[in-house]
């Protein structure tokens, strides 16, 4: 037999034999079950199959409330996904436990990937020395969402208008919130992120205010909650909740997305929830404070789990998913940390729900923003912090004392 034909036959035979193996499935755990989001992911997965015809990527949605836990059960329970979406708050813990892979070699090997395009601060959380533990595909700043109808009803200028005049600061925010609550009986001026500001999203609720007042959560093992700046910031929020009664208080539901609050803070991925909203709405930057503007960024990255048996393939998929083209595709909901994308025209036009001038706020915030605080022992810190934060959110609480208690509780963990 001719050597070439032999080789061809062997190859064919091998293909035949390995065919069932080659029809591989990558399991990708996601935090979102939103159809619009999934549509984009599936499109990317489809693109991947052009070069890897036998590979299917199955996206597995896990509800946000249990995400980290369920993921842990899967990893510890010997049923690991190949890839997963991971938040800024827990990635240090996963890195410390050594359950995620270094992606650098794969990313560097990928053609046209342009690793250097990623903004340095955005990558800080995800890399350690030379290793890259995850690719932050979503670097999404916190924005103010506002209900224009309610602003109109109260005869108030909207946040973008105020921001345009340079008047959109914490004091104005308080004023507006109170006026909105008064003008819209039974509704609220402001709702913390996803209405979970007193539960799972304490940091999301307080960090914007703390940062613009010039404070911090923790830094080099030092707790910043009881510093004067933080105390001042939280005192304002506390007053808004309990004195002005303009922020949805603990134990109440005042959902922005169903029209019960005039404002909230959220990321642009939530815009998809407003596709069918029966009110007019818009987004605006966070109010500034005594320390100027300090946008807050929430990050999510893609990681490959060490337990995955399809390392190579999974890493290839990460490289594909976060390459410049796909980053642009995802930018509608998940702003990337790539300079090239953020500065492109396609980015500001990416989200059909959000006008491009408002998208510009987003790009600006990403460039200037800081990621939320994180820590390898975040779960423990959170658990230690939570009860003391509960104490803070009582009408008769003394903010200073409560925050000192928070610091005492978490100092060991820091």
């Amino acid at each position, binding site marked *: 037999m001719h050597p070439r034909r032999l080789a061809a036959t062997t190859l064919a035979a091998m293909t035949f034999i390995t065919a069932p193996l080659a029809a591989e499935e990558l399991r990708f755990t996601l935090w979102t079950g939103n159809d619009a989001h999934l549509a984009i992911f599936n499109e990317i997965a489809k693109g991947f199959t052009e070069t890897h015809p036998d590979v299917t990527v199955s996206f*597995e949605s896990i509800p*946000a409330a249990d995400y980290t836990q369920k993921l842990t*059960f*899967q990893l*510890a*329970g010997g049923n690991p996904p190949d890839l997963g979406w991971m938040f800024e708050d827990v990635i240090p813990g996963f890195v410390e436990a050594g359950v995620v892979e270094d992606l650098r070699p794969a990313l560097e090997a990928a053609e046209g990937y342009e690793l250097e395009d990623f903004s340095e601060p955005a990558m800080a959380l995800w890399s350690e020395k030379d290793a890259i533990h995850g690719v932050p595909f979503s670097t999404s700043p916190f924005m103010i969402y506002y209900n224009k109808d309610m602003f109109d009803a109260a005869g108030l200028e909207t946040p973008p208008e105020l921001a345009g005049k340079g008047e959109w600061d914490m004091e104005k925010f308080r004023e507006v919130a109170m006026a909105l609550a008064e003008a819209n009986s039974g509704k609220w001026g402001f709702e913390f992120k*996803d209405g*979970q500001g007193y539960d799972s999203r304490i940091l999301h609720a307080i960090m914007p205010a703390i940062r613009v007042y010039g404070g911090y959560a923790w830094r080099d093992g030092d707790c910043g909650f009881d510093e004067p700046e933080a105390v001042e910031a939280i005192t304002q929020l506390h007053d808004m909740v309990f004195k002005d009664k303009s922020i949805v208080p603990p134990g109440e539901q005042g959902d922005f997305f*169903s029209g*019960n609050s005039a404002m909230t803070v959220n990321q642009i991925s939530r815009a998809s929830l407003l596709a069918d909203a029966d009110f007019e709405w818009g987004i605006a930057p966070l109010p500034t404070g005594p320390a100027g503007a300090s946008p807050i960024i929430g990050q999510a990255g893609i990681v490959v789990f060490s337990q995955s048996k399809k390392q190579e393939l999974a890493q290839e998929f990460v490289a594909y998913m976060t390459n410049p083209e796909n980053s642009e595709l995802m930018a509608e909901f998940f702003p990337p940390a790539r300079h090239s994308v953020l500065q492109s025209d396609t980015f500001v036009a990416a989200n059909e729900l959000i006008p491009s001038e408002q998208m510009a706020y987003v790009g600006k915030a990403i460039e200037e923003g800081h990621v939320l605080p994180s820590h390898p022992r975040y779960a423990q810190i959170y658990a230690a912090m939570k009860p003391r934060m509960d104490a803070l959110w009582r009408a008769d609480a003394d903010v200073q004392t409560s925050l000192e208690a928070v610091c005492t509780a978490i100092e060991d963990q820091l």
Partner: protein
Amino acid sequence: MELTIRQAAIVKKLCWTLALSVVAVPFLFPFLWMISSAFKNANEIFGQPSLIPDVWRWRNFVEVFEYQPFARQYFNSIYIAVLVTGLTLILSSLAGYALARMRFAGAGLLMLFLLSALMVPEEVTIVPNFFLMKWLGAMDTHIPLVLLPVFGPHGVMATFLMRQYFVSLPKELEEAGKMDGLSRLGVWWKIALPMSRPALAAVAIITFLFSWNLFLEPLVFLSSIENFTLPLALSNFTDPYGSPLWHLQLAATSLAVVPILIVYLIAQRQIIESFAMSGVKG
């Protein structure tokens, strides 16, 4: 004015009924509220409370099935509960019978041994069982949801209840069966079991409810949404960011609760009699 004994009895009865009605409010109101809210939209749920929705929103019940594989999850709960109930009935009555009737060395010790299991909460053994199930490759399957209730403290409780009932049965019937040529297994199946219907019914009900309402085990062992059971599914009606979708959650909760309530209403006399007649009273 003097009341006759008869009138006094009526007044007394009225007072009792009134008092009981007041006590019943916190038991029944949640159901009414749940069912009425199941027909509301999210906004109305948060609005002024009223038991009659402004607009009856039947769509909630459709959306429940669109949001997650609710029918599948419903089926999971049913088949697991049926399986657990069946297995528990067989195993607990077998073991309960042996402990009540058969003389074998170590029976007393075994009984004591089993009883100690009643003291151990599932929370205590869940961690090692997690690794056991991992080792068995049973993560994210329904295997632990069947095996753990059957063999855990609940199974022991069922065994104990069955034993108590068997002890109270007249022995002579079984001896007659033995004289008639039945094997031990035959006596158990053809005589002891048919005579234990109340106890079996009581154990079946407790077991079914136990499995139906199981929460910790599904929470720990299940990860795929298609494998969820109802309790887990109910707490999973959240938007992609973890906030509860109240109208769907309540519609789904109604769907999960109402059929059981109806079955209970139909069979309540038998259920209560079963409890009364079985050894549940100890």
